[in-house]
């Protein structure tokens, strides 16, 4: 494991540092950041949704918690971005744990409804909380860029690149480990898994917590990226639908699925949003989501695997 981790890790860091030397188009980093953000969110969603079978419809809520926690850390506690990311992840992870704990004995649909409820409540709370800026939002100024970056956005991109790499590697590791096999067993038949010695409650809680943690981390650099944070800027629905659609398009059974989905769907959206309105964007994602869940539920990876055999 070690070799297959450190070498690519260094390569990714190098990539993040070197790219700005060659690619000077600012829009590349602007759009790329979003694609990477969704890669993390899609991967986090799939950990719980694809592997364990528990659907999270409140991804936007977890993301917003991450963004606001980070904003508070950055603005009021003057902490650096890494600490902010950790704090955001911990808070979101705790939320994931809480929702999981409350719904763990119940059928999956109640977990799904609980996450929906949570995201609505979170938005309500933030809108009404003046200290967080309420509906007026918060202004966050980017710090000065430090060498080798000439623009802070380039640093944010590199940061997201590395975090996306870590997230994907983590989930890949889990998928191949006995934890991953147990997740799939739980999804297939929870009762028989329990009778075969699988600690289903603990593993489900692990999944909801880890998934929430990653979603919070994904939201943490967002305040610096967007510089004006308000409850609707995170566009809760867009985040949730994308986090569902990308793993479904790419393939939910494999760690590469969310990655492919994020690049394809995220990339397409960046191109489209320059040409069509954001509402049409939403419509297209919705149609793609339904089309894939009906016609190609195993996603692109599933289609490729079927072609092979």
């Amino acid at each position: 494991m070690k070799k297959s981790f450190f070498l690519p890790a260094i390569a990714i860091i190098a990539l993040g540092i070197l790219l700005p030397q060659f690619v000077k188009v600012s829009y590349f980093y602007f759009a790329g950041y979003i694609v990477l953000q969704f890669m993390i969110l899609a991967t986090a969603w799939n950990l719980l949704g694809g592997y364990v079978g528990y659907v999270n419809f409140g991804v936007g809520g977890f993301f917003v918690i991450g963004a606001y926690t980070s904003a508070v850390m950055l603005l009021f506690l003057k902490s650096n971005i890494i600490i902010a990311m950790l704090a955001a992840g911990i808070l979101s992870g705790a939320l994931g744990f809480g929702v999981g704990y409350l719904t763990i004995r119940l059928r999956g649909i109640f977990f799904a409804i609980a996450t929906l409820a949570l995201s609505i409540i979170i938005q309500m709370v933030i809108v009404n909380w003046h200290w967080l800026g309420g509906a007026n939002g918060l202004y966050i100024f980017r710090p000065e860029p430090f060498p080798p970056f000439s623009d802070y956005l380039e640093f944010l991109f590199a940061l997201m690149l590395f975090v996306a790499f870590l997230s994907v590697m983590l989930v890949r590791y889990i998928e191949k480990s006995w934890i991953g096999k147990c997740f799939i067993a739980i999804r297939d038949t929870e009762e028989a898994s329990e009778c075969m010695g699988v600690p289903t409650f603990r593993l489900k809680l692990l999944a909801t917590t880890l998934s929430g943690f990653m979603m919070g981390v994904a939201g943490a650099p967002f305040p610096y990226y967007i510089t004006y944070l308000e409850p609707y800027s995170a566009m809760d629905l867009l985040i949730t639908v994308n986090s569902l659609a990308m793993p479904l398009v790419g393939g939910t059974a494999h760690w590469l699925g969310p990655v492919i989905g994020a690049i394809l769907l995220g990339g397409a959206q960046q191109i489209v949003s320059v040409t069509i309105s954001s509402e049409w964007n939403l419509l297209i994602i919705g149609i793609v989501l339904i089309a894939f869940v009906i016609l190609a539920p195993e996603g692109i990876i599933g289609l490729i695997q079927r072609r092979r055999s």
Partner: protein
Amino acid sequence: MFELVINAIVAGILLGGFYAAITLGLSVSFGMLDVVNIAHPGFIILGGYGVWLLNTSLGLDPVLAGLILSPLFFFIGIGVYLVFYNSFEKRGADSLRGLVFFFGVLFLIEVTLILTFGVDYRLVRAFWIGKSIEVGFVGISLRLFIPFLVGVILTVVLYLFFSRTFLGMITRGVAQDSTAVRLMGANPILAKTIAFGLSIATTSIAGALLISIGPVEPGLGREFIGRVFAVTVLAGMGSISGTLIAAIILGVAESLTATLGGPAWGMAVSFGILLIVLGVKPSGLFRR
């Protein structure tokens, strides 16, 4: 103070009738047929907009418009169920796919409404909206009373359908044992399809009531998800009469909380009740 509480209770009961109307369809689709239709509130909003169209262009009374639209919604429901059944249930796919499918439908409805109507609030006008009756110190707003009446009538109609008609009883039977139904010579799939169609047919009427009680915007659907599922679960899955009672309980609880604690807390009540019921009641809610 006393008068305030009584008024809140009365308003809560009337609200309960309305909540019954918006939940009955889900009691059928989720409670009886075990279909995870979280798009149900979306169809209600859709119905609301349909009623708005008929109300503003033809001047039709909202309840009447809702009734006129219900056959259309019936067929929409049949179409949705056929897609759902053939794509997921027949193949024995895990419930994740079905859930994501209905979420996609909910999402599509919302986005389509935004594209067609924009995000502004829509209202309807009717002769009974804005009037109220005074009974002693209790004020009964017709805007709430008519939906309450419709909710009660809808409950009675559905109750009779599922307990007295052949088709209704088959559907109840299917919920418990589809093999037995098949042995009786009836087609369980057909029964389920019609029942689901019925559940969506109620949403146009529910939508009419919704837009009568208050203004409607495309994103409203997600706010009602907590309420409809709270009532369905509190009622005991699939119980029509239970739905009315549970809806009234929720209505009163919400009304009292909103009056005494503030409107923001009112919405939290439904989620609170849902959590409590799920924590305490075991049947029908646990993983298979």
